[in-house]
């Protein structure tokens, strides 16, 4: 029942293809790795005509298993120069699944002066490209408003703001959220907004299918039984889950006092203002007139998202997450939720990865461009990125490029990508992931943080490798937020897979598939030019002790190189 939509951005054609049988059973990240391996020259210009961008749903999309309506976006990253899969919630994957679309591929490149277009998937399944010239230069919220006026308020939209149009390496793709239908969910990492921008595509509009596409099950009764059992476990687990009860902002309470949350460009000092952004303050903001426990996608039972309104009660932002709070907040010495919510809105609107951009602003502060903690000045820089000023264009190239331009000595990146909200000196296993994963400094590639996060090098490496496999499974089938439940039931997950696809896999096969995905990604990166000696944690993390613990990052460089 699945199909692939292939769009040529040069001649404007769109065609539907039967799903390749060799890809049967793949989804999300695993499908992207296979697809890019099969169809894209890894040495290509990521913004050139040989590059492709793929959107695909996970292997359980549309099945009713909780949290499986995730959208994976993949391409060669202009930021890292390697493969990138960026995983996002929202309602686009549900809409894709309603049409039986497993993947949508955009290839080739229009001529330089061609006007932008947007893709429309109509209720009958027809796919057209429409003139987007009047929307060029428009940011995400206004573009989505226009699309809702044209195609209905319930239409799902994937789009880029001016950051993607300007081909910024820190640009995101935004996806409309379940419920609010606001473009506040981000496929943020890797600068993939610029890849869509390079194709001259402003957005993808997906109207719900006229007739719902139904899955073909090998054993439907068995599938439904296991699915319902797993959904029950996820729901039960959510009752005591801080990500449900508060949101990912709850992470601040643990990593803030521990000195693991980045502060002042990964300086690590713990500010006396930390209490301003702990969970109770977050809940004050939420409870003023918004809500938490909001599902970002249909069928989510974890519900870690939220709706933040301004003082007048108007929607301000949603999906206001820990990573945004950490990188745009304490990492810039800003401890004010009112300001941070506005910054989150700005980034979603412009189409910026909040991790990359927050890290870039902090480097600007360290370089003396603006003072530490000056929220107004910081918002001015975000605006400059949107406006495309000379400085804004530099900042849009990401933390590493901006830092080098400004002569900064401390640039917190791996493989050209800014680190997420966990200091390498405080979570050695996560740092190992930053340095060695196929995704660059990306916590979703294999975080090890939590109680008893190992400080012993060998244990940290083992934990990182295990979690890299776990997250490769998660990114292919569900949201990583379900892994604290599904991760204890890989036997049932395997049975679920078998009852859908008619296979006979076991938990070991799930991990073998995950490791195949990681191998394909690694091979792609090698062909793209990544070298073992690129596995680097910046030197200042080795030389400057973390103030809270006195720890430095101490996995020897030769060990990181050996793991390439």
């Amino acid at each position, binding site marked *: 029942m699945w199909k692939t939509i292939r769009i040529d951005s040069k001649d404007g054609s769109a065609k539907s293809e039967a799903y390749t049988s060799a890809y049967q059973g793949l989804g999300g990240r695993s499908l992207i790795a296979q697809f890019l391996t099969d169809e894209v020259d890894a040495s290509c210009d990521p913004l050139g005509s040989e590059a492709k961008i793929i959107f695909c749903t996970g292997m359980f999309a549309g099945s009713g298993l909780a949290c499986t309506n995730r959208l994976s976006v993949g391409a060669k990253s202009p930021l890292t120069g390697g493969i990138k899969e960026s995983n996002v919630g929202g309602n686009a994957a549900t809409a894709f699944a309603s049409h039986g679309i497993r993947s949508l591929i955009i290839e080739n490149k229009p001529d330089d002066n061609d006007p932008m277009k947007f893709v429309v998937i109509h209720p009958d399944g027809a796919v057209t490209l429409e003139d987007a010239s009047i929307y060029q230069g428009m940011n995400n919220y206004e573009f989505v408003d226009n699309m809702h006026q044209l195609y209905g308020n319930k239409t799902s939209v994937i789009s880029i703001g001016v950051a993607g149009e300007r081909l910024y390496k820190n640009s995101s793709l935004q996806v409309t959220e379940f419920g609010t239908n606001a473009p506040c969910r981000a496929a943020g990492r890797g600068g993939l907004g610029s890849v869509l921008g390079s194709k001259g595509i402003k957005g993808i509009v997906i109207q719900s299918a006229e007739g719902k596409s139904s899955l073909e099950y090998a054993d439907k009764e068995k599938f439904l039984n296991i699915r319902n059992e797993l959904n029950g476990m996820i729901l039960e*687990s959510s009752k005591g889950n801080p*990500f449900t009860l508060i949101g*990912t902002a709850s*992470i601040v309470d643990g990593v803030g006092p521990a000195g693991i949350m980045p502060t002042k460009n990964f300086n690590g000092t713990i500010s006396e203002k930390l209490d301003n952004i702990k969970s109770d303050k977050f809940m004050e903001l939420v409870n003023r007139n918004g809500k938490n426990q909001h599902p970002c996608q249909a069928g989510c039972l974890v519900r870690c998202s939220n709706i933040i309104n301004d003082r007048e009660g108007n929607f301000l932002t949603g999906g206001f*997450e*820990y*990573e945004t709070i950490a990188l745009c907040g304490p990492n810039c010495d800003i401890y004010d939720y009112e300001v941070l919510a506005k910054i989150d809105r700005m980034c979603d609107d412009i189409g910026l990865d909040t991790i990359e951009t927050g890290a870039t602003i902090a480097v600007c502060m360290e370089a003396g461009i603006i003072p530490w903690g000056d929220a107004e000045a910081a918002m001015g820089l975000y605006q400059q990125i949107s406006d495309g000023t000379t400085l804004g264009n530099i900042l849009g190239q990401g933390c590493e490029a901006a830092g080098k331009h400004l002569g900064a000595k401390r640039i917190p990146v791996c493989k050209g990508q800014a680190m*997420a*909200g966990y200091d390498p000196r405080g979570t050695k296993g996560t740092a190992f992931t930053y340095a060695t994963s196929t995704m660059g400094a990306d*916590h*979703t590639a294999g*975080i*090890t*943080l*939590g*109680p*008893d*996060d190992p400080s*012993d090098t060998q*244990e940290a490496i*083992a*934990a990182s490798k*295990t*979690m890299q*496999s*776990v997250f490769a499974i998660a990114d292919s089938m569900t949201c*990583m*937020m379900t*892994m*604290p*439940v*599904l*991760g*204890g*039931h*890989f*036997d049932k997950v395997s049975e679920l897979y078998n009852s859908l696809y008619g296979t006979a896999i*076991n*938990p*070991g096969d*799930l*991990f*073998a598939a995950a490791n195949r995905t990681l191998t394909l990604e690694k091979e792609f990166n090698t062909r793209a030019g990544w070298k073992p000696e690129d596995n680097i944690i910046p030197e200042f993390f080795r030389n400057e002790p973390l103030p809270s613990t006195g720890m430095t990052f101490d996995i020897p460089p030769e060990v990181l190189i050996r793991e390439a």
Partner: protein
Amino acid sequence: MIVFNNCEFDFVEGQTAAELVLSMYDRKIIQQKAILLTINNRLVPLPDMHHTEIRDGDVLKTRPMPAGG
């Protein structure tokens, strides 16, 4: 005898790591089944949980499976 999260328990011949974890969960010794398990300070790869046998004298420790933000 084995040591599981700093408490002593009887050794059960032929018990796998997965079976032990399930047993400890059912007895409410641990709160979730999605865990990372070390045996004698070595992490058990998750695919090996179902065929790694516990030995008398093993020291086992669990931690909840990490989840990011």
